[in-house]
């Protein structure tokens, strides 16, 4: 459980830090200019890349799970809980 929470905290920080960084990039001092439009679209494409990569991994896992662990799969075997009454509750 602690490992899971730790993993998610690290992942969250990895998402948050680049976002905060780009917002601070604007700066407050005179003479500092950035093209916000370019920066924002850059950020958008970077985040969409992350989202699509994570999405592909999770969706791929989900599709594989559906395929592999369906009851009609020739490799399917009864789970250790079946017939024990544990699932009746």
């Amino acid at each position, binding site marked *: 459980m602690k490992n899971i929470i730790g993993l998610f905290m690290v992942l969250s920080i990895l998402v948050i830090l680049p976002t905060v960084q780009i917002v601070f990039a604007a700066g407050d001092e005179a003479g500092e200019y950035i093209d916000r439009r370019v920066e924002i679209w850059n950020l958008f494409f970077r985040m969409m890349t992350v989202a699509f990569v994570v999405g592909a991994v999770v969706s791929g896992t989900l599709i594989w799970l*559906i395929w592999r662990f369906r009851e009609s799969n020739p490799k399917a075997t009864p*789970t250790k809980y079946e017939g024990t009454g544990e*699932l009746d509750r």
Partner: protein
Amino acid sequence: MVLELQKPRPIWQIMFSTHHTDIGLLYTIMSLAFLFMGGALALAIRVEMFSPGPQFIADSMTFNRIFTVHGTNMIFLFLLPFASAVGNYFIPIMVRYKDMAYPKLNAIAFWMLPPAAALVWLGFADFGWYAQPPYSAISAPSPAAEMWIFGLKIIGVSSILGAINFIVTILKCKHPDLPLSKVPLLGWSFLSSSLIVLVAIPTFAAALLMLLTDRLGVTGFFNPAMGGDPIAYSHLFWFTFHPEVYVLVIPAIGMMYEIIPRFSRKPIFSHSSGVFAFVLLSIVSFASWAHHMYATGMSFTEKTVFMVGTLAAVPASAMHVFNFLATMWGGRAKYSTPMMWSVGGIALFFSAGAGGVVNTAMPLDFITHDSYWVVGHFHLFVFGTIAFGSFGFLYYMFPFITGRMYNELWGKVHFVLIFIGAVLVFFTQHILGLYGMPRRVFDYPEIPEWIAMNQIQAVGAVLLGVGMTIFLVNLIYSSAKGKEANMEDPFGLGGKYYYPYQAKNPHHD
């Protein structure tokens, strides 16, 4: 006493009953009726947007009225009552109590909804489902606006009464041998969402009163001409309704927690992480409301706080997704209709969450704000996740309610059509938003990309319409003529029918 439709009774016996399964049946029927009515409005919207220029809706005012009632109806008269239906059927059984804690209050909470629905539908207001001032405070036509305000007021009171009932039933009426930590995750989902309702709804109740007095000219809370601030309404509204999104999604996730282990023939992978994620979601639901208002001149610090607060929902949501995946891993899953809806709901829940991360990043929010992206994101949650979970659970409850089985083939056809339709409509809306099309518009210029994407959506909407028609026919036909269900094990999973089976015992034990 449980199989209501198997033992015919006079309708008034059900209508005036205070038993939790009777109230659950009333909630189910009412919410489904409004689902189909609201769906018809959605279809009208998409057909109207098929190409530029007016198609069959005469003017923008009528169009505004249609999407206002569609949104209000789907959230308050379909999703919320359906969740109440599930809670009424299952919560007393899960905590092993004879009924809800306050049966008469339960009946009152239900019977407040039909008059509220009548006010919303007969008024047919035109200011969007959140009644944004200053238009709603100054110039929205009467009496539609007042009817909407009173309708929502009644629904809010009904929600609070229902929430109190669920909280007391779970915390105070559960069997002494059942520790809270062992209450099923569906029960935890109702406890979490009910606590959110109790904290969130009073703020909107106050906002509605302020809006009403503004309309009467007595006050000027949201009227700039009288020194008021329309943005204040947005804060009050979203303080209630961002958590309200979680009020809707948490029970839907709870329903999936009931179905996925059953049909995978395994216990849930981690009960404690599910509880933790529900509690975490409940807390962070209050840390994100102002992300709806990044574009209103908030300070950088405020925006950062709410961005981080919103992103805090990501780990909790991801915990649910991974819990589902880990539960399915190593199982022997039967893909009956309820399981298909649940798995489809998980996939779309994940997609909706990924889009939400983009919305909450404040620089990116300026790209997507008030565009069709937001419409797509919101609908992926409310339809792709919440409605998918609800449809799956309705199929799961069907033998419990009627004593008969629905037609499995048509249930699967329903799922396939709706899944394809939802992807066509709501994913396309995301892209359309990036192409710059604003939401809530009656007409649009002849930009080829916009026309193409609106037409794709119209095709998707027709698929949704066909799918929902099949659903309706399947429900009605199977209720009357469906094959009698094997109440020991209607889905052929090799076990008993779990909680519904236990409910056949009047003492639920």
